[in-house]
């Protein structure tokens, strides 16, 4: 073989400076100067520029979002670990912690849907088990444009297939998520995945590499040339011209990950005395995991011998080795003298593990290859000393003169409008998606997808965790602050409807370009709104992820901060679902129905767009309604509870009839159009008739009795100026068939 041919020629430090080659790696002139003049006091070589480009990308450094993230409400008496680690931890009693985090894989998925989705799932799982927690559930939050072409349909099916293939194979149930369709996501689909894990609180691990002489151990798959520069790439925006940036994709290998996961949990649980720290290799691969571990420990340096890194391909350069995003890899810091003990565990599990370096005195982060020092930078310069930008903020043009009048739906035939509503893809059943997910493996899934929040019991204890993902980007588009509050409120409503009390949230902040003041405004306001609500519901932010530059040809997506919330149900008997349970039960609406039409599904359905000033929202009132519902559930008064969200009250009623194929006979003095209002803070609740007095006493003025559940499989709802009248079975089939039909 001709060896010379494979030897890439790297630019010299001078060429990098003179031709500004750092720009193509995503570093700005200012950042390059900072590295040259303030950090190294010399010209960085090619490898070093690569290290900084990876570490100073938005994905790794949060340089644009850090000042915003500081505004999050992160306190709370049960928070064991907040943002900063791989994932956050909340104490749920009995020496147990729930660990959760979400991750976006928008850009990789846009390039290669199947593999983008699989590697997203793989990455978030590693975040969870590297904390010492066993993953017990995944959720996926998807945003697509309405499918129009075969390509669109193929794209969606590949995303779903990717999520299912990874989660199913590794044996973690995918128990929930949310899927909505809007053309705002036409060129920037969102693929966010969340993972929830469970751990013993005395087994917490951290991603730190301390103690000179301790070994750095590389675990898992070999390093190849896949996904190189992915971290800086993930933070680039797409436009038609940048198409060529779409470089090598990574392939997920769930089988290897399963072995790596079991081996790591074995080391953490049974050999913790030998382990100093552990971290997954995610964005910016080896450099990010090692530099972060080094920097976090503080006071030490690190030397890595790249010749020892397991390599899948010949002649890889230091740049490639350090920035490769090959999947299914972990980095450990192991106490000197304990290496063999740990390596044996990995060997038993059939996982490759090798010592590739060690912690040093001083603060040099050094890389060796073929006996030469190929990079030498201060440890902290890569991780904790990345620049931070305070971006400018300006109210977006579309918010400056928005119409304060609420949209008025036009409804001639209420039943027909309801049926049309049920077939809107955002409203329609997502069964055809979640049916391809293993929702039950681990045999703890008490409420599978199809109700408000999923519920996973904690085996051997009388308690369960409820989990959900939510956000309505349309609301945020019309008002990022209030919309941010609503995102958290809706998640909490789903948690409460399932019988749980909110514990905390994780998030994926999917936004546009932070360097544009109007798009930065959306990010900043949304975070403040979310934070208001988190504080109100006592649900601190414990982890999260930022995906910026979701913009195509200068048009950003709707601001879409996905909220992943977890709640605790003390006592399995309180697990509640949205389905009506038996004929004769009384049906109530909890909460006031107002004029909530701007940004609603009916506005979109009838006008093709959303516009105007977002309808009003009162966070205190929301908290009060949620408390009432949780009180009613805990007093054993409730048979079913369903939050009212997109599509309004009538949609929620229809959905509640579907699960057990029951009917309703209801009467209300609201006019027909109000049945589609998306006013927040509302639930549909059904109760046994003998509990009427107790329930009404508890609720006071806040719940209206609408009528009864019936067993005739018919929905009849009489409004002030008309009525809804339909066969539940027919409606059910319309609702269930809409999505598979549009994806065929």
């Amino acid at each position, binding site marked *: 073989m001709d060896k010379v041919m494979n030897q890439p020629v790297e630019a010299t430090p001078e060429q990098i400076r003179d031709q500004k080659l750092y720009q193509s790696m995503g570093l700005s002139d200012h950042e390059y100067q900072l590295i040259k003049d303030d950090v190294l006091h010399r010209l960085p070589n090619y490898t070093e520029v690569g290290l900084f480009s990876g570490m100073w990308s938005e994905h790794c450094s949060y340089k644009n979002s850090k000042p915003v993230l500081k505004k999050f409400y992160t306190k709370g008496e049960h928070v064991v670990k907040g943002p900063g680690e791989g994932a956050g931890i909340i104490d749920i009693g009995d020496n147990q912690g729930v660990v959760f985090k979400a991750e976006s894989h928008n850009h990789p998925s846009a*390039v*290669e849907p199947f*593999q983008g989705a699989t590697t997203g799932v793989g990455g978030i799982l590693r975040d969870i088990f590297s904390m010492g927690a066993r993953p017990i559930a995944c959720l996926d939050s998807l945003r697509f444009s309405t499918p129009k072409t075969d390509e669109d349909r193929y794209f969606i099916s590949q995303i779903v297939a990717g999520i299912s293939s990874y989660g199913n194979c590794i044996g973690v149930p995918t128990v929930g998520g949310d899927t909505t369709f809007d053309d705002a996501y036409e060129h920037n689909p969102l693929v966010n995945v969340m993972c929830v894990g469970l751990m013993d609180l005395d087994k917490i691990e951290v991603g730190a590499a301390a103690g000179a002489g301790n070994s750095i151990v590389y675990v898992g*798959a070999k390093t*190849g*040339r*896949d996904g190189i520069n992915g971290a800086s790439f993930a933070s680039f925006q797409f436009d038609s011209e940048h198409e060529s940036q*779409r470089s*090598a*994709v*990574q*392939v*997920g*290998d769930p*089988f*290897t990950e399963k072995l790596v996961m079991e081996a790591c949990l074995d080391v953490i649980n049974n050999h913790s005395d030998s382990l100093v720290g552990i971290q997954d290799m995610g964005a910016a691969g080896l450099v990010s995991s090692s530099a972060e571990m080094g920097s976090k420990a503080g006071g030490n340096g690190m030397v890595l011998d790249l010749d020892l890194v397991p390599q*899948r*391909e010949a002649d890889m350069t230091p740049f490639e080795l350090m920035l490769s995003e*090959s*999947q299914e890899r972990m980095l450990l810091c192991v106490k000197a003298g304990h290496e063999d003990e740990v390596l044996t565990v990995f060997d038993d599990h059939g996982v490759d593990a090798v010592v590739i370096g060690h912690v040093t005195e001083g603060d040099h982060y050094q890389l060796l290859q073929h006996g030469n020092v190929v990079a030498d930078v201060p440890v902290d310069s890569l991780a904790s000393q990345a620049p931070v930008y305070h971006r400018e903020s300006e109210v977006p043009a579309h918010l400056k003169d928005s119409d304060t009048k609420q949209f008025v739906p036009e409804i001639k035939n209420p039943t027909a409008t309801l049926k049309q509503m049920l077939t809107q893809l955002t409203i329609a059943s997502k069964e055809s998606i979640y049916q391809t997910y293993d929702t039950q493996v681990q045999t703890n899934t008490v409420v599978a997808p199809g109700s408000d929040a999923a519920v996973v019991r904690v085996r051997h204890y009388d308690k369960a965790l409820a989990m959900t993902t939510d956000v309505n980007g349309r609301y945020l588009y019309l008002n990022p602050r209030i919309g941010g509050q609503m995102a958290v409120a809706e998640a909490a409503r789903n948690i409460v409807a399932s019988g749980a009390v909110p514990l905390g949230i994780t998030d994926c902040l999917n936004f546009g370009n932070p360097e544009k003041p109007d798009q930065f405004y959306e990010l900043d306001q949304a975070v403040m709104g979310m934070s208001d609500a988190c504080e109100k519901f006592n649900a601190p932010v414990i982890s999260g992820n930022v995906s910026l530059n979701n913009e195509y040809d200068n048009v950003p997506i709707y601001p879409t901060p996905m909220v992943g919330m977890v709640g605790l149900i003390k006592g399995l008997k309180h697990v509640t679902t949205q389905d009506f349970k038996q004929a004769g039960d009384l049906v109530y609406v909890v909460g006031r129905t107002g004029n909530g039409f701007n940004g609603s599904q009916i506005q979109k359905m009838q006008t093709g767009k959303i516009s105007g000033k977002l309808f009003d929202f009162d966070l205190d009132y929301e908290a009060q309604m949620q408390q009432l519902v949780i009180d009613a559930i805990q007093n054993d008064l409730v048979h079913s509870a369903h939050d009212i969200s997109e599509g309004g009250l009538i949609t929620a009623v229809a959905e509640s009839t579907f699960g057990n194929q029951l009917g309703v006979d209801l009467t209300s003095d609201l006019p027909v159009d109000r049945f589609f209002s998306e006013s927040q803070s509302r639930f549909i609740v059904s109760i046994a008739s003998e509990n009427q007095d107790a329930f009404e006493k508890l609720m006071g003025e806040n719940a209206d009795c609408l009528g009864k559940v019936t067993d005739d499989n018919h929905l009849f709802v009489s409004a002030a100026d008309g009525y809804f009248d339909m066969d539940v079975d027919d409606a059910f089939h319309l609702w269930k068939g809409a999505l598979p039909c549009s994806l065929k």
Partner: protein
Amino acid sequence: MALVKVYVNYKKSILNPEAQAIQKALGRLGYDNVNDLKLGKYFEITVADGISRDDLNKEINDICDKMLANYNMENYHYDITETEAAQ
């Protein structure tokens, strides 16, 4: 009739976990002279007559680009044989 045999393989830099697992298993079974194993897809496409060779080439390339191979991760090549009837 033409019989088109299309071979689709992963690009060099892309990990093929499946091939890797098979090769490892062969090694465990004692087939240690297997130095390398690649796994790809193999299509046999039978195409009706009445299309020129140039058009056929164009069509096959088209089908491969659009559907049979994923240009992000895969390469393909193909051969065409004329046949009497469908195989």
